């Protein structure tokens, strides 16, 4: 494998090493501001009381669960159209992060709903769509682990990611339909009909904080994935070199 193929990812690793400390700092600052606003400044909802504070950690995770799939799609296009090795790495690093944020959206959504609905899970339309999205993330991760060659795996996962993206609106539509079929009574919608401006600002700040967190973790995970590929290449070269030594 020519060294030139590694050159671009190497530049990425160097860049990541320089940028990550700043990203960590920015993330910490954003979270400090967001948590302060959410916990101490935002008022209680007249209906839900203080449990509305869960919204400030639920909504950003729900947003991220969709955003990360979008990032995976962009990376997938990079893999299929340009065969860019950095695209493969970006795809692979994003999947577990997306799954984690989706999981958090589900758990916080369930905990938010429990005081209102009385049970931890009521197959609410939005949470059920997120559950299906979680299964799709797990499917992607399973596919990554099923193919040994990272480049081939990246291409397979890219197709699955894009097919999934096409289907997400269809799935969302069908789950909404299914939900109205089975719950004709007015269902309490997470988030309420409108969100007051005094709650929008903390929500916005927390959304930025979580997005910064994803970007930071993503770049860090990409850096590690590049190293992992380098190790794999070296191992393969060593194995070939050992063969040559034996024959000579």
């Amino acid at each position, binding site marked *: 494998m020519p060294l030139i193929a590694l050159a671009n990812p190497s530049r990425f690793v160097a860049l990541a090493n320089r940028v990550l400390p700043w990203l960590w700092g920015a993330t910490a600052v954003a979270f400090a501001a967001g948590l302060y606003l959410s916990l101490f400044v935002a008022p209680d909802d007249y209906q839900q009381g203080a449990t509305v504070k869960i919204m400030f950690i639920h909504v950003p995770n729900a947003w991220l669960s969709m955003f990360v799939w979008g990032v995976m799609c962009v990376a997938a296009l990079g893999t299929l159209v340009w065969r860019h090795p950095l695209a493969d790495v970006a795809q692979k690093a994003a999947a577990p992060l997306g799954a984690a944020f989706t999981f958090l959206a589900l758990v916080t959504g369930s905990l938010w709903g429990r005081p209102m609905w009385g049970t931890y899970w009521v197959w609410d339309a939005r949470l059920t769509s997120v559950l299906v999205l979680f299964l799709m993330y797990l499917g992607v991760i399973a596919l990554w682990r099923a*193919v040994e060659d990272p480049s081939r795996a990246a291409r*397979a996962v890219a*197709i699955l990611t894009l097919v999934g993206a096409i289907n997400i609106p269809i799935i969302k539509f069908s789950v909404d*339909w299914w939900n109205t079929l089975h719950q004709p009574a007015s269902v309490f919608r997470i988030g309420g009909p409108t969100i007051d401006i005094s709650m929008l600002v903390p929500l916005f700040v927390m959304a930025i904080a979580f997005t910064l967190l994803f970007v930071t973790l993503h770049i860090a995970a990409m850096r590690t994935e590049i190293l992992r590929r380098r190790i794999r290449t070296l191992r393969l070269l060593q194995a070939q070199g050992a063969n040559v030594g034996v024959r000579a």
Partner: protein
Amino acid sequence: MSAFAALLARDIRIALRIGGGALTGVLFFLTLVTLLPFALGPDLALLRRIGPALLWLGALLASLLALDRLFADDQADGSLDLLLTGTLPLEFAVAAKALAHWLTTGLPLVIASPVLGLMLNLEPPALGVVTLTLAVGTPALTFLGTIGAALAATLRRGGLLLPIVILPLTVPVLIFGVSAANAALVGPVPFGAPFAILCALTLFSLVLGPVAAAAALRHGLE
């Protein structure tokens, strides 16, 4: 066109041969519908109420489990490479194979469903409606499933990966299929709307399935 027909005929012939696995899907369907009352109890009223949903779930699982044979044999003996380099565009080749798979696996499920519906105490009008929805919906399940089959084709131990990957994509088909099937029984929602959406989903899958599966095969076999 004749290449398409030739591939279609070949696949049907192979599937119907001994070891081709064509009718095992129906057998699984029958077994499942037999098992369900063991789990649920023989309450006829309950079975009638959830009968359409049980039939749909059974057809879905039977379709998915039969899908890994779609490309496995061709991958093993090298015919898949021939298809890749042949004159028939790969998308059409995949479509021909998927159609053959539905004719030998999905269609038998559709034909078996009225009989199994009787076991679940469904009334004749309900039987007709369920069979119609399955007839329209099982092609969607097969064609969406070819995407998973193509992704898993080159894996030695594909196993449950294929269902895991495909099941989320089949959720809309399941929802609208059951919704249409139930409309004859329960009827708060008319039959037309979900059935039309089901038809649209099937048509959509007839395009998306072969295109995505062909892409997966091309990228996976280099």
